[in-house]
């Protein structure tokens, strides 16, 4: 195993965190642009109503607009995919697969930890732009305001990072067909965890019963945390061993 604090890893982590910041700023900029366009079109009632109903307050974009769980879950999953996709480029630049894996995992860990304060800050900024919007308060209602939900969120982010990373690693090794088939299988397996987590997040309570038609499950904070704590090292270990011997083409 590579030395965890060698110069290459530090440098890679710095690059990765800068990339995260850039992408976040890019998304923020896009959201600001939407806000500006909305203000410009303020006089046109129909368009304004349409934007208000479908673009701003639609269920699908609420999470994105408020940089909540939904936005970051997408963000971190895509980061995982990009991480796997960029591995060959870094190997070509003289970075070992192990160094890359350690650096990217540590970066994802830091980003997942930073998400809560970033989310809070962005929501405050968002509230300043849309002061009358009651959705701002909704953003702080996840898990019924219980700070423990942040631990679950962190675990879900890490699990999704590895899932994304695993998918592109698989693609690098075996091609798209087997990757897609495997990904579907993993998604089905993970749906139980994610569905329950979403349910808990939005219903605001930790004891939630989900009837899957087969059995009545009693999902608790502890059961979810344990399942994620098992899932993360499992996905991480599989990814690490697949990454470690991945061939890189000279193209």
């Amino acid at each position, binding site marked *: 195993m590579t030395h965890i604090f*060698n110069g290459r890893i530090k440098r890679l982590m710095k690059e990765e965190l800068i990339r995260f910041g850039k992408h976040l700023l890019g998304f923020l900029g896009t959201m600001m642009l939407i806000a500006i366009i909305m203000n410009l079109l303020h006089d046109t009632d129909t368009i304004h109503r349409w934007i208000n109903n479908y673009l701003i307050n639609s269920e699908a974009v609420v999470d994105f607009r408020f940089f909540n769980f939904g936005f970051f879950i997408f963000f971190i999953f895509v980061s995982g995919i990009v991480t796997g996709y960029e591995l060959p480029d870094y190997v070509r*630049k003289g970075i070992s697969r192990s160094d890359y894996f350690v650096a990217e995992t540590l970066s994802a860990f830091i980003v997942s930890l930073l998400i809560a304060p970033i989310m809070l800050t962005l929501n405050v900024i968002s509230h300043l732009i849309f002061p009358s919007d009651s959705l701002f308060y909704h953003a702080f209602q996840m898990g019924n305001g219980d700070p423990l939900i942040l631990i679950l969120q962190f675990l879900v982010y890490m699990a999704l990072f590895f899932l994304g990373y695993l998918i592109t690693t698989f693609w690098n090794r075996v091609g798209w067909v087997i990757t897609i088939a495997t990904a579907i299988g993993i998604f089905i397996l993970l749906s139980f965890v994610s569905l329950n987590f979403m349910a808990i997040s939005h219903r605001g309570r930790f004891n939630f019963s989900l009837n899957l038609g087969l059995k009545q499950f009693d999902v608790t904070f502890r059961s979810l945390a344990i399942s994620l704590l098992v899932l993360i090292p499992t996905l991480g270990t599989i990814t690490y061993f697949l990454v*470690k011997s991945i061939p890189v083409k000279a193209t």
Partner: protein
Amino acid sequence: MNNDYRIEVRNLSVIYKNLIPITENFQALKDVSLTLEPGRIYGLLGRNGAGKTSLLSVLSAFRKASSGDVLINGTPLFDNGALMQHIQFIYQKKFDTESGETYPKIRKYIKKETAYRPYFDLDYADELIQKFGLPTNKRPHKLSKGMQSVLSVIIGLASRAPVTIFDEAYLGMDAPTRDLFYKEVLKDQARHPRIMVMSTHLVSEMEYLFDEVIMIHQGELIKKGTYDELVAAGMAITGRADVVDQFAVGKDIINIESLGGFKKITLFGDISEEDHLLAQALALEVSAVTLQDLFIHLTT
């Protein structure tokens, strides 16, 4: 710059396995063993599909050997971050934008590509940019194929990696540019000696660069030696067919050409002074064999 690297390849095999066992696995390299000494330029010769790129991919840790070892100063190379940053593998890179990849302008691209090369020399890269006339206001995918090759070799030379590998990276260049590149290789090798491996099909053009030549054929190492050793081991004999046949008994013939009653054979191996005297006595014409001819005859 650490120029004491010594590479040892032990019983190296590379097999490309098929996931779905409908077709047979392909063995690209078979039990290859060789040593690369510090500060030497190696020419790697082999026909298309001989296994050159597979060998170079393993030497640069792009690929793991199916069996066998690659050691640098006794340490296994594969996935060793401390060693990998000192190995620069230059090949004919496809600057493909179809997959959505974007490239910065030349100088930024060079910096990005060499960010993890501890001995990279930006001043030398600038000097090479000037010499080769590389337009820095363009992006790599907008360059001509020849200029893309120039960009790749500039990165290879300016990285000053203790192990620098060129895999036919110069194919797109025109003759004057290739000549300039060869001169730069020799000049920079004199200033900063390193292990340099150059795979090529341009044998006659590049042979003067090589301290040693490695020939592989169908995945196997067939010859390795200095240029002088290899060329001295080859001899062409021309004369009357029956006399040539008489001379050739028990010798390692790698090529035969017949024309009417005359015959020309190419021998390879230990050719003694007695052989030379015998050829003279039999009135046979003895001539040297070029590296290119040896390569052709040994691999056909």
